[in-house]
Structures are given as C-alpha cells and as structure tokens.
C-alpha cells in the first residue's frame, strides 16, 4: 500500500518534472486547450441544470469549444520541435492552417447558433 502511494507520488513528480521541460510556447497552447475544455464542461453542466432547449445553440457552443481544443492540439503537434515528422514544416505555415481551420469552424458555428 505504501509502495503504491510512494509509486504514485514518484509518478506525479516525474510527470511534473518532464512537463516543466517543455518550451513556453507549447505550454501556452496547452493552457488554451485546458481553457477550452473547461468552457465546454461548464456548458454541459449548465445544460444539465436548465435543460437542452434550444439544442442547436448547445451543440454549437460545446462543439466550438471542443473544436478549438482539437485544432490547438493539432497546432501543438505540428509546432513541436521534437516531432520528427513535421521538422520541415515552418511554424508559420502551421499557424496559418490553424487560423484557416478556426475561421471555417467559427463560420459554421455562427450559422448554427440560431
């Protein structure tokens, strides 16, 4: 039992140490992802309290949060220097793709919001 908790503590410590080593730009993107997911969870909790009418607004709200989170994760994958597959992709191009995809996403959201 003690070994279990000891292991868990060791695990959390090594995770924290490894994560502290990531560059700041990636940490900012991770913060954005956490923020988007938190917003989505808040919306779901609100829907559970007051009901799901109008459903299309709820869907567009939640999916916009999830969508930006997913796109931010894709941006992080492409910008991460440790990723060998994307080493010849300039980060500006990755960011431009991210902006374009977000534009399309938000255009659809605006249309669906009702």
């Amino acid at each position, binding site marked *: 039992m003690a070994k279990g908790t000891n292991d868990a503590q060791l695990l959390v410590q090594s*995770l924290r140490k490894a994560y502290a080593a990531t560059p700041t730009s990636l940490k900012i993107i991770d913060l954005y992802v956490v923020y988007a997911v938190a917003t989505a969870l808040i919306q779901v909790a609100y829907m559970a309290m007051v009901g799901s009418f109008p459903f299309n607004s709820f*869907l567009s709200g939640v999916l916009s949060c999830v969508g930006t989170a997913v796109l931010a994760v894709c941006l992080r994958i492409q910008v991460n220097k440790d990723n060998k597959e*994307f080493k010849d992709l300039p980060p500006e191009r990755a960011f431009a793709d991210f902006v374009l995809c977000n534009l399309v996403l938000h255009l659809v959201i605006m249309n669906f919001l009702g």
Partner: protein
Amino acid sequence: MATSKVEGSSSLRHAFGGVLSVFILFLIGVVAFSIRLFSVIKYESVIHEFDPYFNYRVTQFLSKNGIYDFWNWFDDRTWYPLGRVIGGTVYPGLTLTAGTMWKLANSLNIPLSVETVCVFTAPIFSAFAAWATYLLTKEVKGPGAGITAAAILAMVPSYISRSVAGSYDNEAVAIFALIFTFYLYIKTLNTGSLFYATLNSLAYFYMVCSWGGYTFIINLIPMHVLLCIVTGRYSSRLYIAYAPLVVLGTLLAALVPVVGFNAVMTSEHFGSFLVFIIIHVVALVYYIKGILTPRLFKVATTLVLTVGIAVCAVVVAILVALVASSPTKGWSGRSLSLLDPTYASKYIPIIASVSEHQPPTWPSYFMDINVLAFLVPAGIVACFLPLSDASSFAVLYLVTSVYFSGVMVRLMLVLAPAACIMSGIALSEAFGVLTRSMKFHITKYFECSHTEAPAKLGESTSTESSAPLENMTKSDTTEKPEVARKEKVARRKQKKEKELTENAHVKPVSAKKERRPLVLPLEASIVSVFLLIVLGGLYVLHCVWAAAEAYSAPSIVLTSHSHDGLHVFDDFREAYAWLRHNTEVDDKVASWWDYGYQTTAMANRTVIVDNNTWNNTHIATVGTAMSSPEKAAWEIFNSLDVKYVLVVFGGLVGYPSDDINKFLWMVRIGGGVFPHIKEADYLKDGQYRVDAQATHTMLNCLMYKLSYYRFVETDGKGFDRVRRYEIGKKHFKLTHFEEVFTTHHWMVRIYKLKPQKNRIRGKSRKSKLGSKSTSSKSGGMTHKNPWN
C-alpha cells in the same frame, strides 16, 4: 557532365510524362462524358425513371423562385392532404449544384434550359469522379495506378447505370463527392497538413448535402482509424486527419436540415464519437510514454487501468441502457436493414418492396464490374506490398463495400470505385513488372557485355520500380507466405498468369543478397502484355455494350423492334399531358406511389402518395382502396377528395411492370395497417392469378376492374400478354367510376370518380327491375347497392 545530362534527360522525361498524363486525363474525362450519352442519342434528351422527375421539379422551383423560397418550401401538391416539407426532407446537394450550373451558364449568356442542365449533370460529374479517382489512387500507389484506375472508373457499367445522361439522381454527384472526400482524407493522412483536413471536412459537408449514403463515410473512416491504431500504425498525422474531421464534420452535417440533430443522436454516428474518444486516449498514452521512463510508465498504466476500468464500466452501462431503450437501438430502418438483411422483409414491407433493395445475383457482379471482379484480388495483394496507411484504407473500403453490395443491389454502386482503384493498382503493377522485364532483356540484348549489365540496370530502371525490386529480393522471410498467397490467387486467374507468378518466385529463392533485378523471360512478358491489353479491350467492349443496350433506357419511353420497324410507346407522357390539359388545376389524382413524382412534375396535378414513401399509413390507405371492392374504394377516395384514379396496365402490349404485377405489394402494405385486407384472400392455393380460377375477392377488387375494364373488346377473348392467359372476369360494368382516358397502347388508364347520386332508392326496389343492373358481378354481393 554525364550526371547533369542524365538529370536533364530525366527531367525532360518527367515533363513530357506530366504533359502526357494531363492529356490522358482529359481524354478520360471525354470518354466518361460520352459513354453516358447513348440514351440521348437513341431516344431524346429527357429525364429518366421516377426519382429524377422530383429532383427536376425541385430544381425548376429553385431556378424560378430563388434559394430562400426553396429552403422554406412547403409543397401542398403532394401527399394530399398532408403536404410535404421539401426544405427539410430533401438532400439539397444535387439541386443546388444543378441550379448553380444553370445560373452560371445563363449569366454567361449561354441559354441552357433547366432540363438540359439536369440531364447532363450526371455525365459531367462522372468525368469529375474519374479525375478524383486518379487523385485518390495516386495517393495510394502512384500516378501510373492513378491513370489506370481513372480510365477504368470512367467506363465501369455499375456507375454508368446510375449516371447516364438523364438519370438526374443523388448518386450522380454523390459518388464524385465520396471519392473526393476519401482522396482528401488520404492526402491529409499522408501529409499531416491541417489545410487538407479543413478541405476534407468541407468535402464531407458536400457529401452529406448530396446523399443519405454519407453514413458510409462517417463509419468507414473511424473503422480505418481503429484499424491503424490496432495494427500499431498510430501517428500524429492520423490524429490530424481524424479529430478535426469529426468535430467539423458533425457540425456541418447538423447544418443540413435533413440530418439536423440526427448527426449527434442516431447510432449511425456513434461509431465516430467512440473512435474520437479512443484516439484521444491513445494520443495521451503515446505522449506520456514519450516523457516517462519505462518503469514509471508501467506504474502509470496500472494506476490508470484500475481507476479507468471502473469509470468506463459505469459510463458504458448508462449508454447501453439509453440505447437499448429505443426499439431499434437508435438505428434508422434503412441502416438496420443493411446490417440485418432480413429486417426489412419482416417489419417494413415498403423498404422490402423496392426492387433495388434486393440482394444481387452472382451474374450481376459480372455484368456490373466485369473484368474487375478478378483483378480485385490481385489488387489486394499488391496493396500489401508494401502496406501503408493509404493502402490499408483502400483494402478496408473494398471489403466493406463488397459486404454491402451483397446486401443490396443498389449498393453495387459504392463497390464500383473501390473495385476500380484495386484493379488500377493491380494492372499498373503488372504492367510495371512486365515492361521492366522487357526493358531488361532488350537492353541486355543490345549491350552484349555481361559484367556491366546488372550495374547499369540498377541505375537506369525508373525510381518507382526499383523500390519494390529491392523489397522483393531482400526480404526472404516473407517469401513463403507471399508464394502461398500468390498461388492461391493465381488459381483463380488464367493459366498464363499462374506460370508467370511461379516464374517470378524461382529467381528470388536462388538470389541471396545481391541486387538482382526481378525479371521474367522476354517471350512470356511480351505475350502477357499483349493478353492484358486484350483483357482491357474486352472490358471496354463490354462497358460500351452495357451502356448502349442495358442502361440507357429512359423507362418513360419504351421501344420495341418488330418486323415492320421500330415501335415507340410514349403512353406515359401521353397520359400526363392529357391530365395536364383536360383537368382542373386543383384536381387530385390517386395512383400507386411509383408514379407520384412523374405526375406532379409532368401533369402538374396534386397527388395522394409519391415515391418519397415517408408516410406508410397514407400509402396503406391507397393500397387498401385499390384492393377493395368498388364501393369501399369509392368511399376511401372520396374522403381524400380524389377526382381521378390512374392505373398502369401492360396486358395489351406485354409491359411487365404494371400495377397488376405490383398488386400483391399493395395488398401487403395495406394489410399491414388495415387488418381486414388479408393477402390470402387474393391468392388461390398460394398462387397469384387473375384468370378464371382466381378468388372472388381478387376478381372484384378495384385494381382488377380498372385494369381490365373493356379489355375483352380488344381481341374478343381477353388474353393478357403479360400473364399469358385469359382473364377471369371479362364482361362487367363499373358503377362508381367512369373511364375518361386510355392511352394508345392501353398502358395508362385514367378513371374519374362518379359523383354521388342525389336520390338513393329504397331497399325494396333492387336490381330486379333490371334496366341498369350490372351483370356477372353478383357473386357474393349480399349488401344493398344504392346505385341501381
């Protein structure tokens, strides 16, 4: 100097190859367009079948009234008195595409009519589909395979059958959208670019707009992602290809009114959400694995598993309870009938009655995809050498589409692109091996120096063929299963090819580690190339024959050849034109649902039921009316405000798809809702017949009477050319209906409901007075008849 000269000549060759392939692709587009024009040449530029007439009517409305009125259109001229919300129940992709093309042409001052644009939409989009196949196969295997696959798709009969000029149906644009969406998915998977992921979602949106078959995409792509994860091919490109597609795709699918909230609530989409969650878990696992040491990773996994499994079990239990509470487990009737082929025949007779929903027979495979049927296994083998994400997707697409084509003959259309891609890969690889052998032997013949030959060949062989070369010579461990697989496949092919594959594997077994080029003897290569070209020629011949003879019938105009020339049967349009010119604008016409779309489009009259078949009870009402005796039928039709009844009768000319042949379906569907209609009443000893041995109920039902009224006057004996016997009841009069029009060949017969008499005679005065009594109709009629 020598290297730059070699480079210059190779770049010149590449440039020449590029121009040549563009020219070939242009020619492929021309072939795809022209092979579909047989019906326009043999008949006229007219819209075919039934469903296209509805799409044509909707496009006419769109072009006349603009998009806002179209989006909010409530159609009151069909499904009287219920009406139909067109904006919310139609897949708008096809009509919007054709409407845009019409508007564009007219704005450029090219005065095309809406009908012309509708007729030629399908051939244009089949050319686009051939180009999309080139792009997709290029991503899977290479440009050579791409061009071969595009050429094959341009002509494959299965696709021609649903996209001839005049077949203005959803599949015309949907197949192009399907292939294009798959191409963009594979492109995203290969490059990992978010730009292509965005384009992929937009192409998926176009597909959702166009066809209900989009559920195939949203289930196939998650299956492929799962396959990649399970076989250990997870990469960040897979995440970029899949995750944005799910989010954007679901949103875009929910934008289309037909789909609406079904995009998140029906079981057809749950697969994609499940795999969305799975891919996030896998991504997280790989990320943590990357930053932890192996020991700590093991600790992490045990911790997560103990906690995670408990949570998962709870969530899954809730989900299963939710889904199981609905009677169809959340699936729609059509999808369920695909998964369980016996479902429709047990529960939904309307779906079971459509002829295109029946399973196909074996010969229809050979008819529809011809030579491809035995090139496909070779293609599957070629996809495994080497296996990449894209080629595993192609194999998965083929396997699932083969299963679905076995369930419903209409879905052979989805099999066609998969079969073309596989055959293109197989043919291209075969040509690659054979031409390489020929080149090797010919250069060796001209070189005449042994030591230099192998080294020179190592440089001069093209780059795309040297890679599989080295793969085959270096890997010894994979020889045995390859030989076994190849021999198993070869048993189904011709004898010649079996010798070839055996020859191909004699060499590598003897070669150890040296880079020996894998070649076949020269004579065998030349003969094989010649035979493959003959195979291609036979395929082209079959496709042209199928397009010209089998799939070009517009089915609104029939022709037959007899000794005194060509007979044209234009009865349908004759009847609709009569309705259009001789009835009031607000008159309602009742017929079986097959003819609803054509009646509203060509005759411009309100109908009771049409091909949309969304309301089973309404159709059952019409079916009951057709199966009832005259008075009961009159009552039903009168309650629906019907003025005219239309039946299709083929007995005089031998047209087999008439209403008498469809009558049992009317009984079944009617009996499904109104229990007093029993199918057994209409069958004699389990057999369906309308001659003298037919049952009393059959001989007195409305359909029999309306079809055979005065039929005995044509030849004196009442010989029905379709059923091939004389009819049972020959001389009778109609009491509640009067005949107003019968077309030239008696194919369409229109009757009017007689208005009710003002004065009804009492019970005591019956037909004993005899003046207007109907003869030979008495049978079992015991209740009073107020019409005498």
